[in-house]
């Protein structure tokens, strides 16, 4: 899609610079690189595939026009995820009454599927569903910091940028959220 130097995929910083200069193809490369995490971030907030796709797409378009304000040297991924999160929250608010899909664990793998990671293999499906159920019962604030760190596997710094908070806040917020998740796990779902 975009020029590559000696077969090497361009770094984000190079793609951002090209996109800043108006290179839409270079920006398309960035979209391709981050569309999955962007869509999943939006889906975790909206729980609707359509809304998540719209939110991610609009976020990428808005981000393109906001590239002039993107600080050189900063990471693109948390920056775009923050824009995606804002777009997704806007959509969720406007569709507040629509039923949202619950978090579900991946289906059990069939004989031809790749083997689960050792960690995943140790966590029984019912335990995963129970943990996801407990996550659902947390406040959005607690759920989002846990989702960003453990479900989307963002670093603390990326989580801070994506949530729009200071890095120190992520650590304390995560600690409190994990305590509340643990407490929630001890209470039956209908209790």
């Amino acid at each position, binding site marked *: *899609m975009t020029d590559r130097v000696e077969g090497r995929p361009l770094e984000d910083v190079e793609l951002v610079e090209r996109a800043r200069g*108006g290179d*839409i*193809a270079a*920006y*398309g490369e960035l*979209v*391709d690189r981050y*569309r*999955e995490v962007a*869509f*999943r971030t939006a*889906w*975790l907030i909206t729980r609707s595939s359509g809304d*998540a*796709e719209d939110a991610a*797409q609009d976020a*990428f*378009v808005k981000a*393109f026009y906001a590239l002039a*304000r993107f600080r050189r040297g900063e990471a693109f991924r948390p920056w775009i995820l923050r824009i995606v999160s*804002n777009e997704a*929250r*806007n959509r969720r*608010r*406007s569709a507040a009454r629509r039923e949202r899909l619950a*978090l*579900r*664990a*991946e*289906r059990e793998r069939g004989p031809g599927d790749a083997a*689960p*990671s050792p*960690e*995943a293999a*140790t*966590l029984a499906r019912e*335990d*995963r569903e*129970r*943990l*996801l159920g407990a996550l659902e019962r947390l406040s959005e604030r607690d759920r989002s910091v*846990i989702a960003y*760190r*453990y*479900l989307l*596997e963002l670093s603390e710094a990326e989580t801070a940028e994506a*949530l*729009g*908070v*200071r890095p*120190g*806040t992520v650590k*304390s917020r995560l600690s409190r959220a*994990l*305590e509340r*998740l*643990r407490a929630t*796990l*001890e209470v039956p779902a209908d209790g």
Partner: protein
Amino acid sequence: MDDRMSIERLEAALGALGVAYPETPPMVSAVTARLASQRAADRRPAFPRAALWNRRRVVVLVAAGLLAALAIAAAARYAIGAFEVRVQPGVTSGPSTPPFEPDVLGEPMTPDAAVALAGFDARLPAAPPPDEAYVIDSQFGDPGLVFAWRPSASLPVIEGTEWGLVLVAAQGDTELVVKAIDRFEDLQELVVHGRRAFWISAPHVLMLETERGVETYAVGGNVLIWQGDGGVAYRLETALGRAEALALAEGAP
């Protein structure tokens, strides 16, 4: 899974969770097509015949238009200290934006710690002490202070937030908060402590200047803005009515 697991085990379990996400749509061609289409539209003259006008005529018309726009803008802007109110017809008819939540500003701290960090004192309204305080680091001007109260019998919850009262204080005239309202009628001029004040009781948009850039929020609560002593201006957001909000502001020493 044990009923009482350690945080470390909980973290490990979360790391091993596999969420069944829907399939990610391709998205690239849709985004690039929208950008290309927008670019083409930007290049197209709004009035094709205007492209044939001579350059001097266009410059004169643009200058006249700018003067007219500046005149309208000057008439439609109101400011108290670092708080500015702009009248932008249609501003609230766009997509909703998140409500102003103080916790996006970072780690909450005690009011005393926030005041010490911000470097100026703020006069708090006649209410119980705030539950949380924050410092807004602006890119351009002095830092601002945010105080937040949890809802109580006397401070009903501001719809869409988890707060009963939010007060923003800012020193100086460097723009920290811009509020965009839909109509002139949404803005009332009042007096607090003998000085000019504004009352906004219609939903509006708030743009907050932070160290990360401008954050935009939807505000559904009522807002009172007034000038206090020492060059400090205040913005109070509440679900209470005008009289109660005025009493809170007048109660600030």
